[in-house]
């Protein structure tokens, strides 16, 4: 009855069950990814409800909460408007220089938010507080909406908009009633990503002297190590994060990806802007100037002013070597550990597979500071020798970046038809040897792509690294942070340049995605 109607790629899912070794490995990994959440829950319970209430109901905490929530509530809609607007101008109108705008609007992703902060502070030294935070966050994060929105707009079936026009809608009416609803998933996905980043970001807001929950937790940690105040704040932060996830899930509802044309099928003639072309062009120019021009100008200006003196070769080489070493080990470990997750997600259906996916989704959104705190606490309580070791910081990287490796591995595995593995087995090759000779070989490119994403993420990571790296460690991000904290902006410039340079390849990947697939 069933087998013939189920598409071949899905067939084994209903047939086999994961073996005990795989289940064991995945259970251990899930338990590990639940450490941050578990830590928060445990510390809130251990502190006791009265104490927790006393800690939360302080004017200081209310202020932090207002700042953090305000940041999300203002920045996310702003990014949505800018991202969707820019995507629509570039993809659907005849605004001059379309092929030039496309890379320029993705490029801000190559500038880590704390480097962007540094750029703005050195241009306007008095910049601080809420609106400064909004400015830096918006210019750093709007591409998270732009990329999926542009991809969706490019691939929308032109017939839909044309049908709306034929049914009597004006261009604006067609946009609101037909195009915008199709962008819903892009907007929700991008918005969630921005929200999670806003909650987790430390460096950018610390530099702007804008206190959020994350910066406060960081300061608490440095002052009192792992006091109840810090872990209670972490609990509030995790709660906000869960609200964000639930909100996105509720808004997404049962929406599925819209019917998307095959891409090159038909060309939709762009809207003619006419006299509005110049204002539209100016809006894009201002956006790019603020998000890309300011950091570029700042870095280049400090390099110019600093001349050759700021190129402290020994420091830069040692930081680069350390960064590359940490990132390489973390990328390898993360990719290997992501494999069982991806395997279960692709090859099996049922409660276990859905549970694994669900926990991954939640833990992947935990702010780095919560993960770092949790690991420090667990290490001190259960395995004191681990504290202040490279192993601990590597564990944090794995927990933080497993989803990045997994996304790539999943799509790589999903592209291998099970028929190929069956063919190998029918040729007398055992399942294990088949895995090595066929599966692993075919998934290798995807694994490499995932590993390089993790490499870059680790190389530009600041928060968890600052908290967990053993004394004497000095990565590029740490060197940049300590120099710019000492207001030695010129000496920090080479490190900023290296951090941006490291992010360029990943940004290129995202740029290619924006011109191809619909999802970020």
């Amino acid at each position: 009855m069933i087998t013939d109607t189920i598409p071949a790629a899905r067939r084994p899912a209903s047939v086999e069950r994961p073996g005990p070794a795989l289940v064991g490995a995945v259970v251990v990994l899930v338990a590990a990814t639940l450490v941050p959440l578990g830590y928060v829950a445990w510390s809130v319970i251990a502190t006791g409800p009265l104490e927790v209430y006393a800690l939360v109901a302080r004017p200081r905490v209310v202020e932090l909460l207002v700042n953090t929530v305000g940041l999300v509530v203002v920045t996310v809609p702003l990014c949505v408007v800018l991202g969707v607007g820019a995507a629509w101008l570039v993809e659907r109108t005849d605004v001059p220089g379309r092929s030039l705008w496309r890379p320029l609007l993705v490029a801000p992703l190559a500038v880590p938010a704390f480097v962007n902060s540094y750029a703005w502070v050195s241009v306007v030294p008095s910049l601080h507080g809420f609106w400064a935070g909004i400015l830096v966050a918006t210019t750093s994060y709007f591409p998270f909406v732009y990329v999926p929105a542009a991809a969706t707009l490019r691939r929308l079936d032109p017939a839909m908009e044309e049908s709306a026009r034929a049914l009597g809608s004006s261009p604006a009416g067609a946009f609101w009633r037909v195009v915008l609803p199709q962008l819903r998933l892009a907007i929700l996905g991008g918005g969630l990503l921005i929200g999670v980043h806003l909650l987790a970001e430390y460096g950018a807001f610390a530099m702007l002297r804008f206190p959020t929950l994350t910066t406060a937790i960081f300061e608490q940690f440095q002052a009192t190590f792992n006091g109840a105040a810090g872990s209670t704040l972490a609990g509030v932060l995790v709660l906000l994060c869960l609200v964000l996830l639930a909100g996105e899930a509720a808004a997404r509802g049962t929406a599925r990806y819209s019917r998307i044309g095959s891409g090159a099928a038909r060309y939709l003639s762009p809207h003619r802007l006419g006299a509005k072309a110049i204002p539209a062009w100016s809006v894009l120019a201002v956006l790019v100037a603020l998000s890309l021009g300011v950091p570029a100008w700042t870095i280049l200006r400090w390099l110019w002013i600093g001349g050759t003196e700021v190129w402290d070769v020994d420091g830069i080489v040692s930081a680069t070597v350390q960064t590359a070493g940490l990132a390489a080990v973390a990328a390898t470990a993360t990719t290997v550990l992501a494999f069982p997750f991806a395997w279960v997600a692709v090859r099996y259906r049922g409660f276990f597979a859905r549970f694994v996916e669900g926990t991954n989704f939640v833990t992947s959104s935990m702010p780095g500071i919560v993960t770092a705190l949790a690991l420090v606490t667990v290490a001190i309580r259960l395995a004191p020798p681990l504290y202040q070791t490279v192993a601990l910081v590597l564990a944090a990287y794995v927990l933080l970046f497993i989803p990045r490796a997994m996304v790539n591995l999943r799509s790589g595995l999903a592209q291998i038809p099970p028929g190929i593995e069956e063919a190998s087995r029918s040729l007398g090759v055992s399942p294990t040897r088949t895995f090595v000779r066929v599966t692993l070989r075919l998934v290798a490119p995807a694994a490499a792509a995932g590993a390089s994403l993790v490499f870059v993420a680790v190389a530009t990571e600041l928060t968890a690294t600052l908290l967990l790296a053993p004394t004497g460690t000095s990565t590029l991000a740490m060197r940049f942070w300590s120099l710019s904290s000492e207001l030695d902006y010129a000496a920090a410039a080479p490190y900023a340049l290296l951090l941006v340079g490291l992010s360029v390849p990943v940004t290129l990947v995202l740029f290619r995605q924006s011109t191809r697939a619909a999802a970020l």
Partner: protein
Amino acid sequence: MTAHALEISGLAKEFDGQEVLHGVDLSVQSGTVTAVVGASGCGKTTLLRLVAGFETPDAGTISIAGRPVADVGRSVPAHRRDVGYVAQDGALFPHLTVGQNIAYGLNGSARSTRARVTELLETVSLDADMARRRPHQLSGGQQQRVALARALAREPALMLLDEPFSALDTGLRSSTRAAVARLLAEAGVTTLLVTHDQEEALSIADQVAVMRDGRFTRVGTPQQVYLTPGDVFTARFLGDCVLLPATITSGVADCALGRVPVRGDVADGSVTLLLRPEQLVAGAVSDGEGGTGVGTVLSSEFRGRDVLLTVDVGGGDPISVRRHGIDPPGVDAKVRVDVIGTATVLDERP
């Protein structure tokens, strides 16, 4: 040869509580081709996957070349079953060249492997130069032939083909099918083939098994299953049918087309008669003529090499008659329908 290359008995399988196969029995003689044919979703692919060892049966046994490979609570894994398997799309390994694909299951020195690959390429009528190509550089028919060569390399006791020609376009399908049939016959490889194309099954196989809802409705030679299909479903599945109500008296049927001899021993009584359109001949008669077998043309469908006439012969539904396309009788013309050969009595009424 006496040993059966494949022996299946009482095979049952369910997925998520839904029974896909209900106690299937099948024997395949060594060196012959058996085609399992059925509509999509009837369970034929599941049967093939059970034989290949990709699934384990819930009940029943499978023996390949006299060796039990699946029994209650025991199942030999796919890689130890000594079967060749060719999937619908060929399932060539995209990361290996054609030569490496064919050599995949071979163990031996590089030289002997190379010689064997060349030999196999020749067997499936491909150039030896092809060995260096990548699968994506081949046409669909070539890919299918490489998949066959790869499966033949280990000289399996049983070859399993899962709709091997359905991914090919019509022209390529018949030529590839003919080439594969010749090749399998020459090599004397016992083959179990699954298809939804009854023409393919009838033309390529020594034995045809028609499957419906996880059961075989008829197993026999192509002639047997086509001419004496048993029930209406099987009859319709294997080709166009003319079904007529008839009364049997001492081995001869009385129906709207007159008295027609029937196959086998049939008890007297009312039955459903099966005739194939090619058994009927329609000849024009003058308007005044009447009698048994004379009817009126209701419609005439020109189909190039022949015309399909729908004729009302009175008593029951109109019947379809195929006729050569020269000077066909028009609508409302009178024709006499004569029967060639014998009719078959079906088990049940339509």
